[in-house]
């Protein structure tokens, strides 16, 4: 499959993860989110930006359990819990938020 952003065609795999992660920008994130049925709010962006920072530091997309824990550590337990994160990203804060953040599918899918 592919996304269209600013007139450019951005290639993605069957599940919608970018083929080339360097092609990501914020406009594309809005586009991917829309395809997933999500309207990006500041709360969504907070998680997406956190994931991008995590990736930039560790070169992996975290497993959802690790993501939840890391968010709790940085933003407090009100946000670092499954209920909050699944409300934002119903198909999973790992898989869905990583897709919107333009990252590879999280390591930790067993």
């Amino acid at each position: 499959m592919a996304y269209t952003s600013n007139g450019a065609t951005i290639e993605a795999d069957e599940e919608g993860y970018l083929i080339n992660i360097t092609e990501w920008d914020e406009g594309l994130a809005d586009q991917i989110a829309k395809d997933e049925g999500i309207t990006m709010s500041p709360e969504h962006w907070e998680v997406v930006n956190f994931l991008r920072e995590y990736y930039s530091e560790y070169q992996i997309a975290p497993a959802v359990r690790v993501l939840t824990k890391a968010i709790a550590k940085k933003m407090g337990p009100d946000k670092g819990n499954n209920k909050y994160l699944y409300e934002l990203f119903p198909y999973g804060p790992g898989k869905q938020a990583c897709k919107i953040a333009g990252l590879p599918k999280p390591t930790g899918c067993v």
Partner: protein
Amino acid sequence: MDEMESGIVKKFMFVNRKAPHGTVYALEVLEMVLISAAFDQDVHLAFIDDGIYQIKKGQAPAEIGCKNFSPTYRALEGYDIEKLYVEAEGLAERGLTEDDLLVPVEVVSRAEMGRLMAEMDVVLTA
């Protein structure tokens, strides 16, 4: 699926003895280790022989066109994998000290490493 419950907790040790970049083993062992974190086992990582080079600071494989996965070792702590052991003799042979390593580790002698390995239920060396 993230948490795997079996009720059994075994002592696992992943023994790294190959250098990174020249072959794929280091990268794919790391993927194994990250997955093992979801199973709530007692996971140990050992770096001996050329495996010590996997956690050497300053790796920059951009010019060979390969992914730099060395920062991922620093993510292990967040996965609750905190038992990392490096062999003192191997470090010395390679002219390295603990300061050259990009993650906190416990430096142990070869004899201690051997005794540690002997306690394990599952040992996967690569």
